[in-house]
Each structure stands twice: as C-alpha cells, then as structure tokens.
C-alpha cells in the first residue's frame, strides 16, 4: 500500500468529509470540488478514483435508491473509513512538513 495520497485523491477525501452522510455521492462530490477549487472533473474520473480508494480500504460505498431526477438510475454513496481518515491526516501532515519554512515565499510569490 502506498503511504500517501495523490492530489486528486486528497481532494476527493476532503470533499467526502465536507459532505458526509446522504450527500456524499458522485454528483455532490463533483460539485463540491468544482465549487471550491474551480476545477472541472468528469463523473467518470471521480468514480474511477473513488473506486481505487475503496479498493485500498479507505472508504466504503453502498448503492442508494433510484430517483426520477436521475432518470431512474441509482446513486452510489461513499463514507470515509478510519484508515482513510488516518491516511488523510498523514498526507496533510507530510504536506505541511514539506511546506514548513516556505510560507512567506508561498504567500508572496
């Protein structure tokens, strides 16, 4: 298992934390990332990445109910697992450690 998270994976896990519960499914995750980072991602990219995270045991998923809004197609909901949360923290810290001492330069380019 890899020790850290990729950038996109980091964004995804953070988005899941922001949303939580019933709201944590593909469309909302995508919207959240788009809103906060102004980065446009496709649902396909979101799902394949989430898929990978699930395979690593960082998150779990379950199928929701079909809604008419979705043309009768089911949602797939996600929840952060303890392992995922721990890895998120580690990645965050690693990032912080790497950036330590660079703050003035990073903030005033």
């Amino acid at each position, binding site marked *: 298992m890899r020790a850290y998270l990729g950038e996109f994976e980091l964004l995804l896990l953070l988005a899941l934390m922001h949303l939580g519960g019933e709201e944590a499914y593909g469309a909302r995750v995508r919207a959240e990332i788009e809103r906060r980072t102004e980065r446009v991602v496709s*649902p*396909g*990219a*979101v799902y394949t990445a989430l*898929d990978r995270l699930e395979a*690593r045991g960082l998150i779990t998923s379950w199928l929701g109910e079909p*809604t008419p809004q979705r*043309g009768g197609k089911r949602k797939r909901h996600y929840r952060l697992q303890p392992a995922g949360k721990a890895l998120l923290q580690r990645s965050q810290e690693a990032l912080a450690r790497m950036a330590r001492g660079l703050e003035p330069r990073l903030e005033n380019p």
Partner: protein
Amino acid sequence: MKRPPVVAALLLRICLPRDAYDAVAGDLDESWHEGALSRRRYWRLALASMLACAAARKRGTAGTPRIAADPRKGERGMRSLAQDVVYGARLLRRNPGFTAAAVATLALGIGANSAIFSVVNVVSLQPLAYHDSQNVALLRAFNVDTGAEGFALRLPDFVELRRQSTVLDDVAAYAYWSASLTGGDMPERAQAYHVTANTFELLGVMPLLGRGFLPEEGVPGGPNAAVLSHGLWVRRFGADPSVVGRDITLDGRAFTIVGVMPRRFEFPVFNFKGDLWAPMQIDPDAVLAGRSTSPSAVVIARVRAEAGYAAAQAEVDAIMRRLAAEYPDTNRSRGARVIELGRLDDEVLAPALLIVAATVAVILVLACANVANLLLARGTARQRELAVRAALGAGRWRLARQMIVESLLIGAAGGAAGLVLAFFALDALRAALPEIVWTTMPNVDALRLDRATLSFTAGLSLLASLLFGLAPAWSAVRGQLQGGLRESGAAGGSRGNRRLRASLVVLQVALSTALLATAGLLVKSYQRQLLIDPGFDARQVLTMTISLPDNRYASQESRLRFFEEAARRVSEVPGVSSAGFVNVLPFSTYNRGTRFTIDDVPPPEPGREPGAAYRVVTTGYFDALRIPLRRGRLFDSRDRLGGDRVVIVNDALVRRHFGGHDPIGSRVHLGRSDTPESPTIVGVVGDVRHDEITETAYPEIYLPAQQAPQSMMMLAARTAGDPGTFAQAVRTAIQAVDPEQPVYHVKPLQQSVDESLVLQVSAAGMTGLFSIVALVLAAVGTYGVLSYAVGQQQREFGVRLALGARPRDLLALVVSRGLRLVLSGAALGVACALGVTRLMAGILYGVRPADPSTYLAVSAAIALVGVVACGIPAWRASRTEPMAALRVE
C-alpha cells in the same frame, strides 16, 4: 423539462459497465435537471468519463471490478472497444493493398454522392433568401383552354388581383428594364427591373443600407429612386457606404440611390438576376382604364400562411374567371397558376436530378458490394485467427464487433477521402457551369461543401459501413459456429460465404447493366437532339444585344437609322459576311408573341385568335442566320415606314392556317398593331426553333424593322471563323455609330443553343461517366471473386490436371463459372432497366425506353467486360502446375 442528450447517454450505456453507467449517467442527468449543465458540457463530461474509465482499465489501476473491469460486463466496456479500434487500425495498416482498394472504392462512391447531394441541396432543398420564402408565389399566366403557360400576366390583372384577393397578403409585379448605366468611367448595361414599390416588403428582405421604396415613389411623376444589388454596389461603387443619396444616370435620367440590398439577396430568380431596381410608376385606375393596351409584368404574391396554396389558387381562379366573364375581349381564357417561387425549377430539374442521384446511389451500392466482397474474402482467410480468439474466450458478439469496428474504420477513411474527392468535383462543376446558370439560378453561390454536405457525408459513411460490414461480420460469426479450428482453406470458404459472394457479383453486374442502359438511352437521346435542324445555322454567328435609351432615341426614325447604320457597318467588318438585327434571337431566352387574324376568313370570337411568334428584323437577318426562303421574297429597301405594310410568315403558319395553300398576297391582321390596316404576306420562310431544339415548330410572323422600329434589338453577324475573335471589331463598328451606346450579351449563337441543352448534356454526361465507373467496379468485383476462388481451388485444379484434364478444360471451367454469374446479372439488370427506364420516357427524345440497339450494345459491353474479368483468373487456373498445387497444403 428538456431531455438530456440522447446520443451521449446511449454512448455511455454502450461503453460503461452497468454500475458505472448508473452512477456516472445518473450524476450527469441529475446535474442536467438542476440546470447546471449545458448540452455541450454534458457531452464533454460524458466523453471525459468514458475516457477516464477506459484509461483506468487500461492501466489496471482500477480497484473493485465494479466500475472499471467487471469480468462479465467488461467486454462491452470502453477498454475492449478501444482495443478493437487499435487492433483494427493496426490490421488495416498492415494490409495497405487491401486498405487502399477498399478506401479508394468507397471514396469514389461516397464522394460522388456528396457532390451530387450539394447540388440537390442547392437546387431543391435550400430555400430562397426571402423571409418565409415558402409562401412567396409566382402567379404564372396560363391559357385555360389550351393549357399553354406564359410567364407574365397583364398589368390590369395584377391590379385586380391585388385589390380583390383576401388570401394573398400582398401582390407585387416587376418588368425587365435593360437600362444603360452611364456616368463614371464607362457606359455599362445593367440588368435592371421596374418593381412595384411594395416588392421588398413582400419578399420580407431589409436593405443592407438605406431603405426600400416608398409608396410615393411608385406613382406616376414620383421621384426617381433606385436600389442597388450588393454585386453592383461592390463592382461599380467599390462598396462605398456613402453611396446612398448619390445620383446615378440610367438611360440618361438621374436616379437617386436610396438603398443597397444584402449580398445573398437575389431577385428575380429563374430570370436574369437584377443589378438594380427602380419603382414601377403606375396609377392603378389608369391601368384599368387602359385595359386593352396595357403592358404585361411578372406577378409575385405572398400567400397567407394560414390559407395555403390550394386556397390561394381557388381564389385566384375565381377572380380570373370573373374577369374573363366581365371583359371577354381581353381576358377570355386567361388564368393564373399560383406556384411556389422556389419550386419553379423543380419540374424541369427534378427528373434529371433524380436520375443522377439514383445513379450515384447505385455507385455507392456497387462500391459497398466490392468492399463487402473484399472483406468476405479476407474473412475467409482470417477464419483461423478468429477461431483462435474464440478459443481464447472471445464471445461471438465480441468477434462480430471487431469486424464491425474495422468496417467503421474503413467507412470513416472512405468518407474522409470521399469528401476530398467531392471538394474537387464541386470545384470542377462550378468551373463548368455555363454563365446562364450563374445569372439566373438562385443560390448557385452556395454550391460548395457546407455543413449540410458534411453531415450528409458522415451519415452516408456510417450507413455504408453497416452496408458492407454486416455481411462479413455475420459470416465471420456464423463461420465460427460451424468451423471452430477446422482447416477451411481447401473448401474456399464456407458454402454460404461463397454463395453470398456470388450473389454480390450478380447484384453488381445487374446494377451496372441497368446504369449503363440508362446512360446509353440518355446519350442516344442527346445525340438525336444534336442532329435536329433548328431551322437556322448557328455556327460562326456572333450575337449581341443593344438597347437604345428613350431619351437619346425618342423618335422611330432615329432608332431605325441607328440599327440600319449599325447593321451596315458591322457587315463591312472584314470577315463578316452578313449581319442583321432581330427583336428576339432564337435561344436567347426571350420571346415575343402576337395574336392575329387572317382577312377574308371569318374571325374567331374575340379572345380566341390564334397566336404566333412576333419577330421584327432588319434586311440582313435571314441571310445571317441562313433561314431559307420558301416562297415569295425577303424584305428589301422597298419596304419603308409609311409604305405598304408587309410581313413574312413561316412554314408552320402556312401549314396550320392556310392548309398548305399559297398565302402570298393574303393579309393578316396583327393583335399588336395599332393601325387598322392589315399587312400583306410577301414571303414564306423555314421554321425556326426558338426555346428548345425538340419543340414542334410554332407559327411565326416577321415584320420589317423599317415598319415597326424597336428600341431593343439583337444582332446576328455571320463571321468567317471563331465568332468570339470578331467581338471587338463588331463592337468598334457599332461604337462608330454611337460611342455612348453599350452592347451586352456578347456571345456566339452556338453557345446559346448549347446552353439550352445543358440539362441533357449534364444528365447524359454524368450518367455516362458514372455508368463507366459502375462497370469498372463491377468488373473489379467479378475479377476479385473469381481470382480468389481460383486461388482457393489450386488443389482441386491440381487433382483435375493429374487426372488428365487439359489446361483448356480448366480455362473453360472457370470462364463458364464466371460467365454464368455475369450473364445472370446482366439478364437481371436488363429486366430492371426495362422497368426503370420506362419512367424516363418523358425526358427521352427520339429513342424509345426499350430501344433494342441500346440494350444490345449494353449487353455486349457487359459480356465483353465479363469475359475479361473472368479470363484473367481462368488463365491463371489453366497454368496451375499439378505438383505445386498439391504442395499448397
């Protein structure tokens, strides 16, 4: 709520496993319904999703099988599809010969169709550039008794229709006006029209600059206003935007430019497109009062959309009937037909276009059959490869899909190459279009590869791919069921496969036979038309038109002096043997007619007088055109203005109205003349065909120009060589009479005659060309099938040779096998052609649809090509060496 893009959703469904599809498409649909996505954005995200899933699968980094690599659904996924595409492309690249043959064949078929589609699009599908142009109608004059059609109505009828109609929103009229445009560097002749002041509003087109006409400009004595076409504005005024308000001189009078029309505006159409328009200044009441002497004008109308054409026609019929009852002298048997302006050319062009379109469609089918044949042949060779893949777990659907993907690739490449071909074909076509098409045909400028043609080509490529791809795919899958890993080389492909390919050959030969027969009939019909004597000798005759402006040539004497002097000077030009003027030349697209009665014969009721073509000529005219004198004399210097009035008539008039008796000395009264005195017939000349070379001769009456001076006349000068080279000398001779007088429509008479046949030439030429292409395709198909079969049967031939067969026997065997296919195809084709060409009876001249000699020639050609196509493989078969053949396995 709008539905999300169907095609994108369908693509997702095809390319993603079920679960991933639910999640991805569900999300997209949800965002769509929230209004967060545009159509374009939906598409982008859908495509990106497919790529993401495919990439994940390819990297093998996907986690759970759910999204990316469901082992059950995986085969339907994007990854395997991408694999198919890559694999297919690699395969095509590795067989350059096969690929080139298939793509070139398809390019030919698709390119021809794309080019012809562009033409059909311009001619029949694109609306005229008017507002709601489907409601703009032409009110075409016709005789309710005889059904004869004319173009123009008479002005009083126009006024009445405009006043009385409730179903026509508006009615406008226009009349040709050959204005000379002076001032500036050079006198120029403009295609000008007098139009009623409401014309631009009726058409619903706003000027690009300035305005249209005001009602007060459309009454007698109103200000002289002019609206320029975009073309004239650019050509003459350098697209100067300040031109509005400036004065121009037309026929010596000053006109104020009030507007410039936009570039795409063309009016009128199917007539010389206007360079400029000026208001027709009429007083409706005065027009009605002068009913019997009123001029005519072409009438257009806007049909009320809710009412429709049938209601408009019914109302116009009622009005015209009422007028006929009220004013029998002028209106008896006059009717008007309401025709959509944009459909005017349909009845002329539709049959020819239909033939050409059908021809290129057949070409495409032939091309598809050839490619299918190639694929089938290759499919047989690939049996083992497919069997191995099947053994390794590829499903039947997967194998079929592989074949279909390959077909789509070939189709796409063929379509792209076809587009390039179409581009050059259209370029060539534009260059070859005669001037008359450019100056009269609407929308010709739009004849190029536009978006519609691109979509058409894309659709056609897809269709073609399915057409030629399905049979091989099906055959591959079925072969799989039967064959497995069995060696199949010796059998020459499965039995069904062989039968399929044999029937493709029969189909190809049949189609090309039918095409060849169609083309043969058209060519023969065209040749027959070339042999017709039009009644005059058009070779080496130079023609041009001169229109004298009223202000400088007010009196009859001055006009007459000009034309006599001009004719004299032109005939003195070295190399010109004779020259004369006429009011309308044959094949000039203009015509004039008159009604007449014969004195001493009880006159028919008013309004039912017979008609004749009305010609006014100077003395040299009959000589210049070599129209033969049958009886009596031609016009000469005895016939003066104010002297005894004389006419010359033609054979057709004598046949029809004098029962063939000598008419010399009889008097005919002309409807057009304002004097009560009837001119005397002094001569009879041969019939002249005027509009079409195939028309039956129509009665003609010639008047001497001295007794009926005209302001517009056309010159015919017989030269001693290429008439084009005399244009400058003749022009100079005319300018010596009046340096300010412009001449126009300078061209050889033969060219006008040829232009009248342009439709026949193009139809015959195109079907001829395409049928040869078809023949080549069919020959290649036949050759391909036979030579492949021969290759597969090497061992059989070896055995036969070993058992004592002579090479000759093998030759005969293969040829007879091939000819059997070719001959049954030819028989089928002849049967088809007999059925189809019957529909062409209307456009054939002098040849019956079932013309035996054409069919004989076609059958012979097919048989000959068949022998060659079969002969080469047969010769190869006969050269089989028994031992080599046995070693093949």
